[in-house]
């Protein structure tokens, strides 16, 4: 009998070891995942009691935690909430986090592994855990100008510093006030959430980075870049540009907006075609270069990749396998070409930065409460989209667009602006999208900007990228250049 009892003793130890192994897996290895869950009440409550670090622009907080006397010790408050909402996001007890509050959560509440040493010191010196501050790359003046420019419209603005990729402005309208979601009055919060999620204008949708739109004629910059890079074209190359371009495999021709040929010629130069935004000329180029060349060029500007991880931007796209008429449509930014305003700002920024697209970023640095730097973002190159020579040619053509063409409303006195307008039709029922993407000064670019107006409440025949979107871009550029 004793041998059987001994075997049972071993079996019992195995059972207990299984319990220990499972607990180790749960509490040591799986703990991180479980603690990161949004429905984890304990973590959420404890984080609500942490002195969360501020989100700064320069040294001015746009989000900060203030001492509170109710059930939680700190109240998150957002100065100028709606202006910065698409960037800061919100920090809500009931609805979790969004934006920088979500992606920089570990830094803001001080639980990031890089701050482990700091936490140990805090424990020893009996200090409360205090989160780190996150400084944004945003330029307050540009952000304010962008938000003010969008007043009464539905749209988005993204501005980038071409040489570094720093995001200078990122605004959308309609917006929302994150203070309403951060409130400790949970009934108010759920009422606000219901209202915001059900509002027809979708105020919580981040149009700058999370929504895709047809880029329309601003995509002609990508087509022009592909053309110049192919070696088959120069700015002076004449391109077939009739009023109507018959397309293969279909009876529906490609037409110019005004129903006429391009700048008075059926064979306009590339420069003239861009100046007048001639659909037929770029359709011709698209058919010549083929879809793959266009897609490759688009990818070099950042299409097909998710950008700006701080906000989880979606990837812009060029259709996978278009036929010939679809390729011609794609070359002018129609058919199934889809881009975020951020992506179109990157196109302008890439051209501005001698063809080199910098990786856009929003977080300049993270610092502990005693101002020790935890991390500092360094500019990083994303792709060389075009050669510096092609970039210079494109810049010249874009300067011409603003000086003499569709982009006239974007002119700034005393500064050379390079830009491109766009108007994208989706369906006859809804107003087209108005676009303007530009950079300035053309010889030493400080800012590249993309403006997209989704719905401006004006008659559809009146809408055009030049008249609607360009003045906003101008305002944002002036805000940066005037400093």
């Amino acid at each position, binding site marked *: 009998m004793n041998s059987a*009892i001994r075997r049972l003793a071993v079996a019992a130890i195995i059972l207990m070891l299984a319990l220990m192994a499972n607990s180790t897996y749960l509490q040591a290895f799986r703990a991180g995942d479980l603690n990161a869950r949004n429905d984890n009440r*304990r973590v959420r409550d404890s984080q609500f009691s942490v002195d969360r670090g501020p989100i700064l622009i320069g040294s001015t907080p746009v989000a900060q935690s203030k001492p509170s006397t109710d059930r939680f010790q700190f109240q998150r408050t957002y100065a100028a909430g709606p202006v910065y909402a698409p960037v800061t996001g919100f920090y809500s007890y009931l609805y979790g986090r969004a934006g920088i509050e979500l992606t920089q959560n570990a830094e803001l509440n001080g639980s990031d592994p890089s701050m482990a040493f700091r936490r140990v010191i805090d424990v020893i010196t009996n200090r409360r855990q205090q989160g780190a501050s996150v400084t944004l790359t945003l330029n307050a003046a540009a952000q304010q100008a962008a938000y003010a420019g969008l007043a009464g419209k539905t749209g988005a603005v993204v501005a980038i510093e071409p040489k570094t990729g720093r995001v200078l402005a990122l605004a959308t309208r309609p917006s929302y006030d994150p203070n309403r979601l951060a409130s400790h009055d949970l009934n108010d919060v759920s009422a606000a959430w219901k209202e915001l999620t059900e509002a027809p204008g979708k105020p919580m949708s981040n149009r700058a980075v999370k929504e895709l739109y047809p880029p329309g004629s601003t995509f002609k910059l990508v087509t022009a870049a592909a053309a110049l890079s192919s070696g088959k074209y120069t700015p002076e190359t004449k391109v077939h540009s009739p009023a109507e371009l018959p397309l293969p495999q279909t009876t529906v021709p490609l037409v110019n907006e005004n129903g006429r040929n391009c700048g008075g010629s059926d064979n306009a130069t590339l420069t003239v075609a861009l100046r007048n935004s001639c659909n037929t000329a770029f359709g011709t180029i698209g058919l010549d270069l083929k879809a793959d060349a266009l897609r490759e060029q688009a990818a070099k500007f950042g299409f097909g990749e998710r950008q700006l991880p701080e906000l989880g931007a979606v990837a812009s796209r060029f259709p996978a396998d278009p036929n010939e008429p679809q390729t011609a449509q794609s070359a002018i930014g129609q058919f199934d070409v889809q881009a975020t305003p951020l992506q179109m700002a990157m196109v302008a920024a890439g051209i501005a930065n001698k063809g080199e697209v910098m990786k856009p970023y929003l977080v300049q640095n993270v610092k502990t409460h005693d101002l020790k730097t935890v991390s500092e973002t360094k500019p990083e190159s994303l792709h060389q989209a075009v050669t510096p020579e092609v970039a210079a040619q494109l810049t010249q053509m874009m300067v011409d667009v603003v000086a003499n063409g569709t982009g006239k409303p974007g002119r700034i006195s005393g500064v050379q602006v390079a830009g491109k307008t766009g108007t994208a039709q989706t369906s006859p029922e809804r107003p087209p999208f108005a676009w303007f993407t530009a950079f300035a000064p053309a010889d030493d670019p400080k800012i590249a900007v993309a403006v997209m107006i989704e719905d401006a409440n004006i008659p559809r025949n009146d809408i055009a990228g030049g008249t609607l979107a360009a003045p906003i871009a101008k305002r944002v550029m002036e805000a940066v250049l005037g400093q």
Partner: protein
Amino acid sequence: MSIASTSVVQIIPRTRRGVELLLLIIAIVVSVGAYVNIGITVQDKVPASTGYYAAGIGLLALIAHFALRFRAPYADPVLLPCAVVLNGLGVAMIHRVDLGMAAAAEAAGRDPRSPAAPQQITWTAVGIVLFLAVILLIRDHRRLQALTYTAGLAGLVLLVLPLIPGLGVNINGAQIWVRLLGMSFQPGEFAKLFLVVFFAGYLVVKRDVLTLAGHRFLGLDLPRARDLGPILIAWAVSLGVLVFEKDLGSSLLFFGLFLILLYVSTERAGWLIIGGLLFAGGAFFASQTFGHVQKRVDDWLHPFNEVGGQVATALMGQAWGGVLGRGLGQGRPEVLGFYGQSDFIISSFGEELGLTGLMAIILIYTLIVERGLRTALGCRDVFGKLIATGLAMSFALQVFVIIGGVTGLIPLTGLATPFMALGGTSLVANWAIIALLLRISDQARRPQTPAAPVSDETIAMAVQKQ
């Protein structure tokens, strides 16, 4: 001759009561320390009830100790301190969750529930009384053999008691409670004790026939078909528990105990395999057929499907505790409410004491199990061996099933965490079990004849044996 003399020294029986007293003092200090720690972190003061708590736990432990000193001097010295520290920590954690729930009730503007910790201390006292009764009244465990069938009947009655209409109550889908005189009891906890006595008594008589008759198949000694009767009855009863009382844990425990004792008495692994297959088949059938079993399995496989589910909440609590724990009084065990002090008390410990504390608790249970099996090894009679094995393994199975359920290793079932969880019946029954184990261990370790002077021949024999 130094080697030989050490081996002889080991043979000389020692009571080890001094060791027990020392371990008891450590157990009491740990428990009272936990209690005070909780008071300081939650209420910023040493709780006023510390004296009551310390006197209660300390006095009860010392009474038990002195009872052993006089009535079972050779009893195992480790079992009692292990039980005391688990009991003490359990009360401390129940108190902790009391405080948390009271604060939560206050915040929500509700009236707080009356605290459960004093109740548990009262039950501890009842448990110690039963402990004393077992130690004092049962002078020789072999006498219990005369009660084999009485114990079997009592065990069966206790098992089916919750099924009697008007008496049994359904709590959390399991029909394992009985409500009497305004109090709830879990008769299954005592059924366990009686059934072990019955199994042991029955197998002492039948083991020869079960061992010797049979045939070999694939290298296994399989029993004769006509000998399968008892195992089939035990199987049917345990499946009945599963189906009618909706309690997978108890079902597994009873059938497992029977199989284990069958295996120990016959030393034939064939029984384990037949029984294991029978149970697995039955349990699988039940999990496919009965909603409550199915739901437990679903909760286990996908704990996060249900928003705010108990298992999910417990898992997140333990994850939050991490390796070192939040610290006593600094976690949030009250989010599980009443379950944080009963079924899920282990998760409360995991949260506040972390993986480290949980490891310590599991080790203490392991110690109880292994000391129990050590007692079985040393016991000189078959009946005592079987009882000790059964009781020790009942701890092992119960701890595995409940901790495994709470930590997500296996589906959750409604077994009580021995000595820790809130609940009088379980606590009292466990004290009786420990008393019986101590009684058997006293007999096992006691010198059979007055220690004779060690002669040179014995030493020579000991050397030769080596």
